[in-house]
């Protein structure tokens, strides 16, 4: 629990998943959907959140051979939302600024992974250390 400005962010519920195979992607997406439905998130925001989650989990499999995801129901003030934390122990991203540019990709993807994903969510944070791994945290507020 931490203070963000005047309102406090509280974690109401959480669950952790390990992503090792591509089949885990669909299962994980279904879990995210269950959490989003439970807090009454609308279909458009649900779709944006799940699509963002799908992009990030795919990155994790492609670049880091998998990793761990934490799903949390959070509340701040009157707002409820879902926070997802993707943590891998892959090669890390040497230049995050470059990776966040539209059109940049080192893999076989279309290069809209990270910036595209960021546009779909309310909050986006990425931390990466070369040789240690990458952690991406996204938040989608119910009405955000």
């Amino acid at each position, binding site marked *: 629990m931490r203070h963000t400005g005047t309102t406090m962010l509280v974690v109401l519920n959480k669950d952790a998943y390990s992503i090792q195979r591509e089949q885990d992607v*669909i299962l994980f997406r279904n879990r995210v959907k269950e959490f989003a439905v439970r807090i009454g998130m609308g*279909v458009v925001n649900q779709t944006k959140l*799940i699509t963002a989650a799908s*992009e990030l989990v795919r990155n994790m499999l492609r670049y880091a051979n998998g990793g761990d995801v934490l799903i949390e129901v959070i509340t701040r003030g009157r707002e409820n939302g879902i926070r997802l934390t993707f943590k891998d122990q892959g090669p890390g991203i040497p230049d995050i600024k470059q990776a966040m540019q539209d059109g940049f990709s080192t893999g076989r993807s279309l290069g*809209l992974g990270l*910036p595209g994903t960021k546009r779909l969510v309310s909050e986006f944070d990425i931390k990466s250390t070369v040789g240690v791994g990458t952690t991406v945290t996204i938040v989608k507020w119910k009405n955000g």
Partner: protein
Amino acid sequence: MGPFLLVTIQVDLYDRLALMLESDLVQAISKSGAQGVLIDISAVSIVDSFMGRIIGNIASMARLLDAHTVVVGMQPAVAITLIELGLTLPGVQTALNVEKGMQLLQSRIRVADSEEDAPHGDDDAGSPE
């Protein structure tokens, strides 16, 4: 007019399944000589960049095999998400539902046929007089 292939995707596909669909479909176009492919994605709730790429690939591959592809039934939330994600699916024809998709395919194939027939002077019945 060649036959149409109608593909209904009923579940959210994981990567290998989507790649299998791609290759199966291209084989089926070649085998059947279909001139039109209609892909119904009304039951698909998530189209991410991978799935979008597969749909684009299918359309491009079908085009190389002389078939037109129309994607029908996209959910509004999927359309909103695709555009925000930055995926505009260039080269993919869409229609609102199966019926409109069929009409689009028929009209496209008629246009292609009449272009082929034009030098032979084939025309529809009923002269202006």
